């Protein structure tokens, strides 16, 4: 949330003012504010997803780990470990790690571009 909010806050108010003299509120929001805040919005989404990947406790308590319905990767790793299937647990852990690395790389690119814009 904070990342997304920062994206909107860093838009120059002068730019929004001038835009408002040429187009209505809806167009200024969709065609000015959103495109300008876009890198931050993508970054925020990626961060939220990455955080959710590591979530275990809340998932188990609230949604349990029903196969095919509410079983998340961390829950599946836990179940696999409990069931003694360490090979599956290892694979899933590696998969999680790989996803994490991809997200970090994407974040680095998105955030890097955001700074380049400023």
């Amino acid at each position, binding site marked *: 949330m904070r990342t997304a909010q920062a994206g909107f806050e860093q838009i*120059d108010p*002068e*730019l929004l*003012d*001038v*835009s*408002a*003299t*040429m*187009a*209505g*509120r809806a*167009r200024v929001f969709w*065609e*000015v504010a959103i*495109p*300008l805040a876009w890198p931050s919005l993508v970054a925020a989404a990626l961060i939220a997803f990455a955080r959710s990947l590591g979530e275990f406790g809340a998932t188990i308590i609230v949604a349990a780990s029903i196969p095919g319905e509410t079983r998340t990767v961390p829950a599946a790793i836990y179940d696999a470990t409990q069931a003694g299937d360490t090979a599956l647990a290892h694979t899933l852990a590696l998969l999680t790690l790989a996803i994490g690395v991809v997200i970090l790389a994407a974040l680095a690119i998105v955030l890097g571009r955001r700074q380049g*814009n400023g």
Partner: protein
Amino acid sequence: MEGLLSFQAETRLGAFTLDASFETGPGITVLFGHSGSGKSMTLKSIAGLLRPGRGRIVFDGRVLFDSTAGVELPPHHRAIGLVTQGNTLLPHLDVRGNIEFGIRHLGRAERAARTASLLRMFGLEGFERRKPRSLSGGQQQRVAIARALARQTRLLLLDEPFSALDDSLRNAMRRELLRLRSELGLTILFVTHDLREAHFLADRVAVFDGGRVLQLGPREEVFRRPASRRVGELTGVSNIWEGSVVAVDGESVTVDVQGAMLRALPAGRAFAAGERVDVMVRAERVNLRRDMQASASRRNTLPAAIVAEFAYGSSHVLQMQPEGPGPRIEVEIAARPYEVLGIPERRLFNLEIDPADIHLVPASAAGGGGTMS
């Protein structure tokens, strides 16, 4: 009259109150004053970006805002163009996309035609596909002005649009604006705190101070005949003295300024003997003469010695003390006459002031000017 803007607004913003009212028409009206004097607030009120507490704003017979009638057009329905100091181009759109941003509702052919003619007018042909980031500061501001004009606005609001540019570019842009004004016949409000810029661009000047318009008039009138001491101070009159009227003879008024008797021709205002006045003389209106004879003409002559001088490159400013009684007088002289008169080798000159260049206003304390301390 076509292109007539009538503005009246009272707005409180924290401790500051804007209480301004004025009328102006086609041509460039410079809103001049220190920062925080209410110029930009005025512009924002016209654009619809700031809601006045009370007031009425009408352009070309169309009511943009009226607090009594409950009229408040949204900014994009006011048909105004706004250009500010910073880069306000949309970075994700190219030059064409920026210019067409405000005319998306038009047909493709109409849009293309307008954009093409604006690009030509601003010498931006070939830049259609360029992103704002790849343009120079001057090109960016040209695109910003083109974009403001794309909606066929008749009222252009410019808030220090050239302040972020470097000096030589700024001068070129000012000349371009003058050209634009004569070609398009727009009503242009130009906000600046730069006295030289104000003088260069203005057809009319509105002098702002403390949220009020102290004077609005043709440029020469405001600069040559400030309505009050405060306007004189703001518009760079460097000789402002207190004096009193000793004699009135038809058009001609003689004032005593610290013992010096000066003859003035205050057009359009009557003064009475004994009245206390503020006496204003612009530094560039004082003439220096080498010959020390009292002038045979009816001009004021005053032998005076140079006590200090400052070089500004294109001109020199001299502070001079009269030999007899009289106030210290600041004189501005262009670089070439400065050399021709041999000022570096000589200290004593005859100062000559045309009575028409001595401007009198009722003394500020008694004159009810209001904002003067």
